[in-house]
């Protein structure tokens, strides 16, 4: 493993149309992707109304849900991602204070 693998995070965000919660979640993910995960994330946004097959594949019940496929373990972040602390924890990110993520985990 090297520290500079271009893509470390594979994320899928399930949203439902233009609901406020979905919008909030999308906003939060975008921000993370731009800041903490810059350049290392592949983000897919899926509208559950359009892709029922994916909903089944990922066992999605709640919307919005952010699925973290990589790095392991698999995590489903349920909700509008407003609880930033838990979101960062779940994504294996350092806690809130803006610290550069130049070190990889193990």
């Amino acid at each position: 493993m090297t520290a500079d693998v271009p893509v470390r995070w594979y994320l899928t965000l399930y949203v439902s149309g233009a609901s406020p919660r979905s919008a909030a979640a999308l906003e939060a993910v975008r921000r993370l992707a731009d800041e903490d995960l810059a350049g290392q994330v592949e983000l897919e946004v899926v509208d559950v109304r359009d892709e029922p097959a994916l909903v089944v594949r990922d066992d999605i019940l709640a919307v919005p849900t952010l699925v973290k496929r990589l790095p392991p373990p698999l995590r489903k972040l349920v909700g509008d991602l407003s609880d930033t602390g838990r979101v960062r924890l779940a994504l294996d990110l350092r806690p809130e204070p803006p610290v550069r993520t130049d070190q990889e985990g193990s």
Partner: protein
Amino acid sequence: MLYGKEEWLAEGGAMTVSAGERHPPRTEARLAKAPSGIRGFDQVTDGGLPRGRPTLVTGASGSGKTMFAVEFLVRGARDYGEPGVLLTFEESADDLIENVASLGFDLTQLERDGMLVIDAIHVDPAEVVATGAFNLDGLFIRLAGAVEEVGAKRVVLDTIEVLFGALGNEGIVRGELARLFRWLKSRGLTAVVTGERGRAGQLTRFGIEEYVSDCVIVLDHRVLDDVSTRRLQVAKYRGSAHGTNEYPFLITDRGVTVLPITAAGLRYGAPTERVSTGLAQLDHLLGGGVYRGSIVMVSGSAGTGKTTLAAQVVDAACARGEQALFVSFEESPDQLVRDMRSVGIDLGRWVDAGVLRMWSERATAFGLESHLGRLERMLEEQAPQVVALDGIASLGHVGSPSEVTSAVTRELDLVKARGITGVLTTLTHESDSAASALSVSSLIDTWLLLRNVETDGERNRLLFVIKSRGTAHSNQVREFVLTDHGAELLEVVVGPRGVATGSARAALLAEEHIGAVTRREDLDQRRAALAQRAAEVAAQIAVLQAKLAAEGAEVDRLAAQETHRDEARRSARSVLGAARGDSTASGDTAPEHPTPGPEEEV
């Protein structure tokens, strides 16, 4: 507690309890029911589950909730042409398919036929991180997709409460579930929602009964005296009559069977046809046999010939060409055939001819409920006209007396409801031989008691007809004799010391015979004596008559002498008169002094 008022009101305000309960006609009109197809359940609920509404099925784990729910779908698809959707949160689709295959349900086939969609939703709480507000659109979309795929009329959510644990935020889940149930109702879907029994008597752990308030079914699985019994109770059924008892139910290889204790409601027909018991003398005692479809109980202590009597009835039925079922709780079929052959009843030939089915089982092996399930199944498969249940008292080893009584009651209900003539034998002890060990006598139409009498170093059997409904049955006792050509009833001999049986009977009969002979001889003697007496009397009469005749003759002789004397006197007088010159008249009228002289001389 959240009562979800606004949810119900959103349904159009028609859900007020009082409106439903106070105006049954309106309720009737509204309360369409969807038959569950689960045997017995539709009887208990008078038609099934509320159509177009969710029903909560709750119980501890392992109480059979999933089985109930799956059967509801399978029967709907198979028997009522109503496709279904099964949303399971508990197990994988493969596991589920495998599990219910043991109930005889082929879910894969139903899926292939487009009658069923199984959607197994895997929720692993460990994977889930709650990060804020959400809704359950994912679930809605899956459900809606599945419902549309097959045009489902029925939906099962098994066990949706998992969501509370998995998604964290209970408030949101509650709100979303309320929305889900509204959605189900608005689609007119008949739904079964399973729930896990909560602590301290709560119906469900998370109180989802709040949302499913039309119909609540509680399942229970308890083990009492090492015997497990599953029970079902309709705890609530808004706007519908329903039995409130706890009904035992079974999970068999044909699915769930609820066994209403007396759901038949005593609505049996009452055939007037009599069927022979195979014993002409017994038929006679019973006024021509027993009614078809009635229940005959033969009770008695060990070795009184109960089984033989039951076999006789079965034998007679087979001989009439009827189907018969012989259930023994005491002997194996082979042993039974052998034993009955020894008294001249050949059951083996009926088995070979396919008219008799024999089944033996120790009731202890499985418990009462499964026993009932199997009995019902056999009654259904074979459709016998006569059933013998031999040794039901041994059911008493399985459960408490009340349970056994209820099991036997239901057993008899199963039999009676089908118009089958039933013979059951039960062991009683000599001391209380007039009481049924199982206190089911009120269900019995004809009760025969066999009793051993011990006299003169013998045990002999007596048969009493204790009761026989609808029959002017005999009050007499008969001696019940097992011969090598079956059982026989003999008229009893009543001697000075009561009823005589066996050799006492023979002795008494002999005594009577001797007595008769003696009396006959006595009579002859008396007759002879009488004849003699008559002869004597006749002789005496002859003697007397002879005396009479003799006396009569003497009187005649004296009379003749007197005549001669008169003539002599007259002639003497006329001679004297002539000599004196007197008239004869003066001589006649002047006898002033007696004249003994001449009289003496003559």
